[in-house]
């Protein structure tokens, strides 16, 4: 296994919630990354942001790691959840709440409801 793959594995195993994104949670560099980081921030989820633009090996490696061609990519407790479209759908359907509940990850349920109300 390459060094990049090993680093990715260590990162997602060592942190409950990891978002591989373009830019950072405070300064996203792409609308799709911005949307997912925004949802997690708003829901009060404590997550690690990994800026793929800062590391070409990770940028390529993360696509191979989950056989997924696009960024952002969200991982919860070591498991790949999806990209922007899937996370958005799961947020609006309540599936993201259920996943975080099942995995024992803290978040603000009221904030999640606010997102759903605003997008109803």
């Amino acid at each position: 296994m390459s060094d990049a793959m090993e680093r990715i594995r260590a990162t997602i195993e060592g942190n409950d919630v990891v978002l591989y994104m373009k830019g950072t949670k405070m300064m996203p560099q792409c609308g799709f990354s911005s949307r997912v980081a925004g949802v997690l921030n708003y829901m009060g989820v404590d997550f690690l942001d990994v800026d793929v633009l800062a590391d070409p090996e990770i940028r390529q490696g993360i696509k191979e790691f989950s056989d997924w061609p696009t960024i952002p990519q969200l991982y919860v407790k070591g498991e790949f959840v999806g990209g922007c479209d899937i996370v958005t759908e799961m947020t609006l359907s309540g599936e993201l709440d259920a996943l975080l509940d099942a995995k024992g990850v803290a978040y603000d349920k009221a904030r999640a409801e606010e997102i759903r109300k605003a997008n109803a």
Partner: protein
Amino acid sequence: MRLEQQIRARLTAAFAPVRLEVVNESHRHAGHAGDDGSGESHFRVVIAAPAFGPMTRIARHRAVHAALGRDITDRIHALALDVQGA
């Protein structure tokens, strides 16, 4: 063939969809990060087909990625997907 038509052709061949919309949204991202000047950098696809019915969300997206192939997915910057069973 334009990329939009290639995407449409591959998805039609792979899934015989009952609904397929392929929208080139590249003009909305002109000058932004990821705009390579090709005018074919950002696409939105809405597809519904019986084959997707039993699949999880991730499996649906993977099936679409596989049908498009690396030559297309590597070429475009962004692919917004709405994949539904039918």
